[in-house]
């Protein structure tokens, strides 16, 4: 921006800035002066209001300065300036379109300032700014208002959530979206909601409801805004959270070091204190419990109705003129909802049929969406025609290998979610593609085969079933799950906990044995504890889980003599009698085992300590699994992953990229990735050196020695040549001794 021309009237020696400064220091003494300026402001305001559009530059400038002054000291003279906020609001509301740009900004800034000084409240400010944000044609004003609104809302929710204000604004946004569904004004509701969601200011169901309404709008832009929020809003939020954690790290060590070197001043000591404060805050943040934020998709009220409406309005409706890209976005959201909440929209699958051909643009996205929309409660006969269609259109010897691979892979993704959709002949045909020449197709076909080995091996030919599946079939371990059949629910890792408790009990029994030998009193206490809940076990940090290895030694000693053990068991309460017996028997009936485990959950109350232990055991078990000690349940994990993230087009295209040879450019780019820029031909050393220099770092001693002027070193070199043998020997031995001590600096030796 060029420097503003200073007009004649601005050079008056009267200085409002210095007056402001004086007023602030001593408001009472300068009340008279302020009142004068208040009157001047009032007169100027009237001049301005009488013709806001044609006001001269000088008047505008004068008014600008007076508004600035009054806004800055308004909190000191609340009675005189009582009508001031209303003046500003009125000006902005009525004349925002014709106001001078700078003056407009000043008025907005003044209103925010008044809010900061608690002259007006947040609701008043936001309800003033918001209508203008929506209506104004000026882009700069819009961006200004947007930032002000966001920052004000953030500030209002900074210390504690301001529910009242949030509710007001959310209602305003909701009304904005629902009142006129065809207008683009809903965009602002989307933008504001998304930003506040990202910053975790709003995390409840109401903003989600606003976005839901936005998705059902008639305007394409608003719809896309809403849909994108559901598809990416949560990821964005997580990323923002991570960014917050990582940025502005303070290097305390460095600050401390600087403190020892630099001159000690008040400023530096303050800086140091600030750094320590910051680190403390960060520590606190790190230890704070993770905020329990539900994803937007989970907070939707009535997902079935929402998904149906979305589908009917934007996809099924033939009059809809959305671009393909936006339609795909909507489709992604609908299928995501269907997969996540296991909704039933039967017409969705027949709608897919016409898009499943290799000629369709973005067909992999459609395939991914189809996979996303499938879950175990979708009737198999609805999906079967789709699978057949994909097989017919994509998978053939004649079609391109990428197409073929994508087709088989998408079939696999669908079948993973609903294995019953496949028929025998088709599967056997598809599995035969592992004899193909292309690697991608082979991988896709093998993936399909290994999937069916796990879930439904009967469909495969015997030779493709593999050893484990065949054995599983024979033993009856692998059973086909029928349509609608759900896996029996339970608490994951509960069996582990039961086993752990059993062990603990044994140890305790042994311990009692010990006590019996010593004191009888304590045994009594222990008995009591065994009967009911004891307070020690309730707390997470109770001694139970931390029982030291010493006790184990003792108990193993005790176990050697049989009678003692039996005695211990008898001393236990009658209620617990059965359980240990069951554990001790080596071979158990699986049904009894299951019953026993559920019994733990139904007969006892799991204490926080138990739950913590459960968590720990689960983690251990998972670690075991990763190390390959237990058999992996690949299928389940895969499904879980997809429910969290959804299926993307890349997932479908993945196998096709496997066998492909990359071009030279790609390989070069891959090699270059993450390496320092190299404009000219230079050695790595030189690049490093220049980088170091650019960072303002000094050279090493070695480099200095290398750069040293030749004439300065020549004398020493000559002297070296003239040394006698004895002298040479002495120097060498010294050198060895020194290097053994770690050099002159004694490196590595304390």
């Amino acid at each position, binding site marked *: 921006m060029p420097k503003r021309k200073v007009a004649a*009237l601005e050079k008056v020696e009267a200085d409002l800035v210095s*007056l402001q400064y004086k007023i602030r220091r001593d408001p009472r003494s300068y*009340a*008279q002066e302020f009142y004068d300026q208040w009157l001047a402001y009032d007169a100027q305001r009237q*001049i301005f209001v009488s013709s806001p559009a044609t006001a001269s530059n000088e008047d505008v400038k004068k008014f600008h300065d007076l508004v600035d002054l009054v806004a800055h000291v308004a909190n000191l003279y609340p009675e005189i300036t009582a009508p001031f906020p209303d003046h500003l609001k009125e000006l902005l509301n009525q004349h925002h379109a014709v106001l001078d740009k700078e003056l407009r900004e000043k008025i907005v800034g003044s209103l925010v300032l008044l809010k900061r000084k608690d002259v007006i409240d947040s609701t008043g400010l936001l309800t003033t700014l918001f209508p203008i944000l929506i209506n104004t044609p000026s882009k700069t004003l819009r961006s200004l208002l947007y930032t002000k609104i966001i920052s004000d809302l953030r500030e209002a929710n900074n210390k504690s959530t301001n529910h009242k204000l949030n509710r007001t604004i959310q209602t305003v946004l909701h009304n904005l979206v629902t009142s006129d569904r065809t207008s683009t004004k809903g965009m602002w509701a989307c933008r504001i909601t998304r930003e506040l969601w990202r910053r975790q200011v709003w995390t409840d169901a109401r903003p989600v409801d606003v976005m839901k309404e936005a998705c059902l709008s008639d305007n394409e832009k608003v719809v896309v805004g809403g849909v994108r929020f559901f598809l990416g809003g949560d990821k964005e939020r997580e990323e923002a959270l991570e960014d917050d954690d990582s940025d502005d790290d303070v290097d305390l060590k460095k600050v401390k070091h600087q403190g020892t070197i630099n001159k000690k001043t008040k400023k530096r000591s303050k800086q140091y204190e600030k750094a320590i404060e910051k680190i403390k805050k960060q520590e606190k943040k790190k230890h704070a419990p993770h905020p329990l934020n539900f994803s937007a998709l989970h907070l939707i009220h009535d997902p079935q109705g929402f998904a149906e409406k979305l589908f009917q309005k934007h996809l099924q409706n033939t009059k809809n003129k959305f671009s393909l890209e936006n339609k795909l976005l909507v489709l992604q959201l609908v299928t995501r909802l269907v997969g996540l909440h296991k909704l039933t929209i039967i017409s969705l699958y027949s709608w897919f049929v016409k898009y499943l051909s290799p000629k369709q643009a973005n067909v992999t996205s459609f395939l991914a969406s189809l996979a996303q929309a499938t879950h175990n409660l979708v009737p198999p006969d609805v999906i079967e025609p789709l699978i057949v269609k994909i097989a017919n259109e994509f998978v053939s010897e004649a079609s391109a290998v990428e197409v073929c691979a994508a087709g088989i892979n998408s079939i696999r993704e669908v079948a993973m979610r609903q294995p019953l959709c496949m028929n025998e002949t088709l599967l056997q045909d598809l599995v035969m593609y592992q004899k193909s020449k292309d690697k991608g197709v082979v991988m896709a076909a093998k993936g399909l085969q290994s999937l069916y080995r796990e879930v439904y091996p009967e469909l495969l030919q015997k030779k493709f079933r593999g050893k484990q599946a065949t054995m599983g079939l024979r033993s009856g371990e692998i059973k086909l799950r029928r349509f609608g059949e759900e896996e029996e629910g339970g608490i994951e890792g509960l069996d582990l906990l039961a086993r752990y408790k059993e062990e603990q009990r044994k140890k305790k029994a042994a311990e009692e044995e010990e006590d019996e030998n010593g004191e009888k009193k304590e045994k009594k206490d222990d008995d009591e504890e065994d009967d009911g809940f004891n307070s020690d076990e309730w707390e997470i940090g109770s001694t139970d889980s931390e029982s030291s290895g010493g006790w184990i030694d003792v108990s193993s000693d005790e176990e050697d003599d049989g009678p003692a053990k039996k005695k211990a068991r008898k001393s236990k309460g009658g209620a617990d009698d059965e359980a240990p017996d069951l554990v001790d028997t080596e071979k158990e009936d699986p049904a009894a085992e299951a019953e026993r485990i559920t019994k733990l959950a139904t007969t006892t109350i799991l204490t926080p300590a138990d739950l913590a232990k459960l968590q720990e055991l689960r983690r251990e078990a998972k670690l075991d699994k990763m190390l390959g000690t237990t058999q992996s349940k690949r299928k389940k994990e895969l499904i879980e992953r997809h429910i969290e993230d959804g299926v993307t087009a890349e997932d479908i295209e993945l196998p096709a990229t496997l066998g492909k040879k990359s071009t030279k450019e790609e390989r070069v780019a891959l090699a270059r990735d993450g390496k320092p820029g190299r404009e000219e031909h230079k050695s790595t050393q030189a690049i490093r050196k220049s980088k170091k220099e650019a960072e303002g770092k000094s050279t090493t001693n070695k480099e200095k020695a290398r750069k040293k002027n030749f004439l300065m070193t020549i004398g020493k070199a000559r002297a070296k040549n003239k040394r006698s043998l004895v002298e040479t020997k002495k120097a060498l031995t010294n050198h060895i001794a020194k290097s053994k001590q770690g050099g002159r600096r004694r490196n590595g030796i304390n």
Partner: protein
Amino acid sequence: MGSSMRKKREKKRDFNKAKLKVGREKAKAANFTDTSFKSKSIHINQGALTSDNIDSAEQFKQNLSLCISAKSDNQRREAVAYITNQISSTPPNNPVGTSGVLTKLLPLLSDASTPVRAQLLKLFQALPPSEVGAHVEKILMYIRGGMTHLAPDIRTDTLSILDWLLDVAGDEVVSCSGGWLKTINSFSSMLGWNPNVGSAMTSKGWTTASKATLGTKKGPEAQARQIQALARFLEVGFKPEAPIPVKSAAYWDNIYRLPTTPNPFAYLNLFGIPRDEENEMYLDRGSRQRVFDAKWRATIEAGMEGARKEGGPVGRAAAALGRALNGGLDSPESGSGN
């Protein structure tokens, strides 16, 4: 070693004799553009070089804009003087009309330079009085802004403008919207006789001594001048209205003739925003007096008493103010007598 050699060479270069080239420089191409300089902005002076060819209307407008935009005080003053000349010449040359001149030049009321303001007063005095009446409300706004301006000189000069306005259109001044109460408010603030401030600060011990400190030298002359102006203003406000001469046609004129004054139904405030007490129009003397008695008399009289005790020019001015106030006291009876 390398770096030292380079440094040596660089040092040597300063003492080398520069080779001079002999002969004419190669001729520049016809479309050569000098791009060796950089500039952030290009200024083009808009002032015309010749002033002979421009017709007088153009020149008048040019000067009018110069009054505001010229940076040098002298130039501004000269421009104002030029316009004064044009208006006061016979026949007056004013292509933009009185209203055009006023709207353009009113902001000059708070110009930084004293000569410009003095010249502005002369210009206003040259304006035809009959045409000023329509713009009184607007002029008063600027006057009120100037009366409470930070710079004391501007305050004083504004009072001269107010004097002129009272001369030219006294009745309109006191009866226009906001002309009565708001102007008195400005006066009281200017003089420091201000009840609002005391109540706003909710503190005891506000004395007149603590007022007006901001780098101003408020001599007794200035205060006397202000009191005089206030007295003048009140005098005009309390002036008994001359009875309208009886005209037989007045009744019919009132009904059928077009009104001769601009905005004759302003007091109805048909299109403006609703007015509060301060912005209200006080059309006749009685209403002015009533509202003055209710709101300001006590304050002004208290201030006047204080000023009278000071003696000197201030005391004399206060005595004049007292007379004006008394005139206001007397008048209700005389008004009722009429």
